[in-house]
């Protein structure tokens, strides 16, 4: 256990008062930017980078790690309370979390999100400490054909998100895929569905779509129907997280982590895909599947854990092979390089103490975030006692501010409003908005990887089944498709057999 000793050394240097202060500053800033839609950790770290040149490397990296983890925590708060996801990865938490908040269980939802994030973040960091080199070999064996199989699996399992009506769910999914197609085609450089508008060339930012479809459509909906004075039910329970809630939450945390960390460590895995998968898994395994869509605590616990475990997973390729797989990771890589550190195979041998300090500070940041967030849960939940006209005015301010901050043009605001109206129409027609976001994220990913794979094979589709990983993933896809059908068949047979007296 050589690593353990090195980790202890790391703790020794991370636990100095100075470094602890930087970790605190980092998690606070991170939580704040996580709450605001549109302003992500990437932009924040990029803005802070020039200022931190004066700091010693350890302090700066600790600050950035705090911002990174803090952003993942913060995103869920607005998601649950206001149905306004701060980051696209916390979209799923809004589905069940916001329903819980409306039923007066905001504190429980926030608590399970915070503790789940802590559990997942801690397990993820432990995994980062001990299995990173092994995992990075696995992660780099993923090429375009493997991603195609992974995306197929994601598409098959998201049926859980489609809602009660298959037709309406599929319609929403297609709306999302269409929005995802807007912009320059990655393989040929040709603009698609742009209609000559320059700002659409780069596609529509996922965050803008999420904010528009969730928050704006809701605010518009209140404009049409509500009196504006209605408040959400105040807190109903005394305890933040009851024993029963805890019993239902902890398996979900662990399952979410198990999905989030490996997929997060894949170079093109991202933090959103594991949250979709986690939600589907929780719905399938739940003893109370009828609660899903009405505020099931597992539907918050699992995806939140998956989201944070993925955040730790992203650091695996970054630290082991120097591969930044998200915008934030790219900026952190820049920070590494500006201190003369070169992430990659030699990082641990060349600048070992610093890396272990960073990893130790991830543990510290995680504890700090839990300590910071749990006591605040009740205070955050009290926000809901503000009349809805106040809340939705605030939501509109943050939504427009975030959209403007992301792109810096008025066109973004117009797109935001147009999508908000689209969201309102969907809501009025009873079409769920979540599948649209799933299509928006998965559609372009699947398309890109499929076309890459086919370019590599000069158009030969057999490349999609080459290699052991693809075969395994496609088998799971087939199983996922067949299991419900087979289940139904067996049930029918049993029913057919039942009348005949066996005894």
């Amino acid at each position: 256990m050589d690593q353990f000793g090195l980790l202890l050394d790391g703790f020794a240097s991370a636990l100095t008062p100075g470094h602890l202060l930087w970790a605190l500053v980092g998690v606070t800033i991170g939580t704040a930017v996580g709450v605001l839609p549109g302003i992500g950790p990437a932009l924040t770290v990029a803005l802070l980078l020039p200022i931190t040149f004066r700091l010693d490397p350890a302090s700066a990296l600790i600050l950035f790690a705090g911002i990174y983890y803090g952003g993942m925590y913060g995103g869920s708060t607005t998601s649950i309370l206001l149905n306004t996801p701060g980051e696209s990865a916390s979209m799923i938490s809004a589905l069940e979390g916001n329903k819980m908040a409306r039923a007066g269980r905001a504190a429980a939802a926030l608590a399970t999100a915070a503790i789940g994030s802590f559990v997942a973040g801690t397990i993820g960091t432990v995994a980062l400490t001990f299995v990173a080199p092994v995992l990075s070999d696995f992660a780099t064996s993923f090429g375009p054909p493997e991603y195609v199989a992974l995306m197929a699996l994601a598409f098959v399992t998201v049926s859980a998100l489609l809602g009660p009506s298959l037709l309406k769910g599929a319609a929403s999914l297609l709306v999302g895929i269409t929005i995802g197609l807007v912009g320059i085609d990655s393989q040929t450089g040709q603009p698609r569905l742009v209609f000559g508008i320059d700002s659409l060339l780069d596609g529509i930012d996922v965050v803008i779509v999420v904010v528009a479809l969730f928050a704006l459509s809701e605010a518009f909906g209140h404009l049409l129907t509500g009196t504006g004075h209605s408040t959400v039910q105040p807190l109903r329970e005394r305890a933040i997280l009851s024993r029963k809630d805890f019993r239902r939450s902890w398996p979900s945390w662990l399952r979410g982590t198990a999905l989030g960390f490996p997929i997060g460590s894949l170079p093109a895995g991202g933090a959103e895909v594991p949250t979709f998968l986690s939600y589907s898994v929780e719905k399938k395994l739940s003893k109370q599947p009828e609660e899903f869509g009405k505020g099931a605590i597992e539907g918050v616990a699992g995806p939140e854990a998956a989201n944070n475990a993925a955040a730790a997973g992203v650091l695996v390729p970054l630290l082991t092979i120097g591969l930044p797989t998200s915008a934030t990771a790219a900026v952190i890589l820049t920070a590494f390089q500006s201190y003369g550190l070169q992430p990659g195979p030699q990082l641990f041998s060349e600048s070992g103490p610093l890396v272990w300090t960073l990893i130790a500070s991830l543990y510290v940041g995680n504890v700090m975030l839990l300590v910071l967030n749990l006591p605040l849960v009740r205070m955050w939940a009290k926000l809901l006692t503000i009349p809805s006209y106040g809340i939705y005015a605030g939501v509109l301010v943050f939504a427009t501010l975030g959209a403007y901050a992301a792109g810096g043009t008025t066109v973004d605001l117009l797109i935001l409003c147009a999508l908000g109206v689209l969201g309102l129409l969907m809501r009025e027609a009873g079409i769920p908005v979540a599948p649209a976001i799933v299509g928006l994220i998965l559609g372009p990913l699947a398309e890109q990887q499929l076309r890459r794979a086919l370019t590599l094979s000069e158009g030969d589709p057999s490349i999609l089944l080459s290699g052991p990983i693809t075969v395994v993933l496609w088998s799971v896809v087939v199983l996922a498709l067949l299991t419900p059908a087979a289940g139904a068949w067996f049930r029918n047979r049993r029913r057919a057999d039942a009348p005949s007296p066996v005894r």
Partner: protein
Amino acid sequence: MEQRGSPAEQVGTEQRTRRWTRWVPWTVAVVATGAVVATTPTGESHAGSTVQDVLGGEQLRIMAPAAPGGGWDQTSREMQGALRELVGRTEVYNVAGAGGTIGLSQFVRFDGDPTQLLTTGLIMVGAVKANGSGHSLADTTPLVRLTTDYQAIVVPADSPLRDTADLVAAMREDLPSVSIAGGSAGGVEQILAGMLAKAVGGDPAQVSYVAHSGGGEALTTLLSGRATIGISGVSEIEPQIEAGTVRALAVSSPERLPAVPDVPTLREGGLDVELQNWRGVAAPKGISAEEERALEGLLLDMTRTREWRDALERRGWGDATLAGPEFEDFVRSEQERVSRVLDEIGLG
């Protein structure tokens, strides 16, 4: 907030809550206003010079037409650091997307404003052509070229290709079977891929080029063993070459590079191909000749600061300072060359 208690008590609580919540919007408004006022930049001006006259006491704003972390963003932020001792505070902001053409389309609106600068380069020249953008660098005033980064052609460590000759042989035998992983469509890597195909006597339109949104993503496809070769900026891929995860066959520079002295140039391998990913700065069109001269002078002064020299060293960028009419001629010739190559690839 609990449900116990008489109705009268509940009413009381509700009223108290009402009174409390009534102040929330006001408090938020006051705090928000305070925050905006407190963070408004105060125009501090340093040493008076002709640049100072040109700026008229205003802060210089640099647009990085790419997301944080990319090459243009890094260039802009290093400029911000180096300019501090010359003109005090400058502002860097990002307008990401579409190879810089979204930033460019916004930048052309600053007609005649000498306080606005745009970081630009070869990738923008290519993207303008590939995306059919309505604006080009001809709608700006190119000021100086600052840095250059050459491209490296790399293969996975266990690839059978040993050198440029092997690559040439493989490409001559069956061009589409040599898949090439690189950055965005129409970007510098695809331009080089097209030039390579042409140099071996093939049709650039036949190249199996797999586009990625960035060098990191392209590297993952290469490391998965699915692509035959990868093309990447030398400064970006150098650590991987050093670590032995990939092997470099050649670099696209005229001479060997000090960062990777063991890697031969394409010319040494018998291919008449040379490509540099240059980066520079442009001002809006319509600024006066004096303003142009003053800004060029400022940027040339900046390239002499110690901060800038340090940045070049740290980032592994080549110094490619070129200003005035020579730079404008250079931009024009690059536009012609790039659009010819992209036409041949079929992206024009």
